[in-house]
């Protein structure tokens, strides 16, 4: 296995060739905020929180979806990046209906965590209050579109890990939403195996188990990576 070396925020780090910048950043003992990225799922580079600066380039790179290469000099935490990240988080909050106070994921929500990480103490952009629905038709789980940030983890885990492809994204732009089947109620979609992986990986309180109420959600985002490793490398995590 060949190894490449690069520099992240002044630290030299060596990673296996083919690693992403995000893996390199983590290998250097550093972190950048992420929302759409999840180990075990193919990256989409959609949330733009993990954008980093590459020396010698004008363009910002999504660390999750960019391959690290030899000799790169990466910066993950400049004032410019901090400003952009905070604005992105404000945009997330303002485009949905995120009310932490009575959310099932209060305390375990990755959007909430990211808001802390980027120092977002309020949104400069007015909340949009979109009209969105709640689908409680599934016997075990619910989907609250108000809390969805369109990270597509559910879409990807259902397609790439479970193989059922119950979910997809419908519409476009700010009308985008997650749909089950032919825009059916989740509970009516035959393809759903009720495995609950979408609920496990959902970063917010959009997908949750019905028995959970405020601040009771226990997500398991690590399961996507565990299943992928089990399937592809025959390695199980007890």
């Amino acid at each position, binding site marked *: 296995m060949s190894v490449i070396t690069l520099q992240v925020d002044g630290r030299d780090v060596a990673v296996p060739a083919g690693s992403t910048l995000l893996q390199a950043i983590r290998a250097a003992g550093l972190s950048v905020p992420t929302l759409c990225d999840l180990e075990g799922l193919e990256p989409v580079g959609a949330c733009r929180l993990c954008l980093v600066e590459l020396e010698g380039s004008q363009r910002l790179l999504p660390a999750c979806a960019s391959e690290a290469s030899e000799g790169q000099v990466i910066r993950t935490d400049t004032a410019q990046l901090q400003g952009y990240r905070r604005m992105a988080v404000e945009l997330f909050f303002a485009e949905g209906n995120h*009310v932490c106070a009575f959310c099932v994921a209060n305390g375990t929500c990755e959007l909430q965590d990211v*808001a802390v990480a980027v120092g977002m*103490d*309020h949104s400069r952009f007015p909340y949009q209050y979109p009209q969105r629905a709640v689908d409680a038709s599934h016997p075990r789980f619910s989907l609250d579109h108000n809390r969805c940030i369109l990270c597509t983890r559910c879409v990807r885990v259902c397609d790439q890990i479970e193989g059922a492809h119950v979910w997809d994204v419908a519409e476009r732009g700010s009308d985008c939403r997650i749909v089950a089947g032919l825009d059916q109620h989740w509970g009516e979609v035959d393809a759903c195996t009720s495995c609950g992986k979408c609920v496990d990986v959902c970063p917010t309180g959009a997908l949750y188990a019905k028995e959970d109420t405020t601040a009771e959600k226990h997500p398991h985002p690590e399961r996507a990576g565990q299943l992928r490793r089990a399937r592809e490398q025959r390695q199980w995590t007890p």
Partner: protein
Amino acid sequence: MIAATPAQDPAQARPRLRLATVWLAGCSGCHMSFLDLDEFLFELAAAVDIVYSPVASDTKIYPEQVDVCLVEGAVANVDNLQLALTLRQRTALVISFGDCAISANVPGLRNLCSAPGRDSARTVLERGYLELADASGQLPFAPGIVPELLPKVLPLHEVIPVDLYLPGCPPSAERIRAAIAPLLVGQRPRIEGSSMLRFG
């Protein structure tokens, strides 16, 4: 309610801080949390003059020359709006106190209820006083007595400039203390990290 005890004043050299707390459209939970400061309330009382507060003062008119004001709640009606404008003029440092002031939070949920062509105020009033009423429903109308609802519930910073944001629903007593304590010695608190910043 909180008696001043000059003998214990920790900042004798400094003029006493004039502190106000304001309750707009919110559940008063932030103020309850403020009262959870327990014995720190004594220290606070020693260090500041509470010049306006629903829980610590009987003053009905927002006074002049306030140093710090903690504002709980969103701006939902004309009284909220008027008070917000007034306090901004008379206060050096305005703090959005809790999630309702910062994001409109739960009171802001009424913004989701707007029928086509009607603002959310009209929609919720019609829902509450006409559609769900028995035969004799009528819309409340009492100018000067019942404050009129604004078309939309707004966070405080969309109405007046805000100097500091203290999130939480409610902010815990520890968080409130950590925010107030530096102010007593003339420093600006650092609102960062999970202990100070988290919503909810």
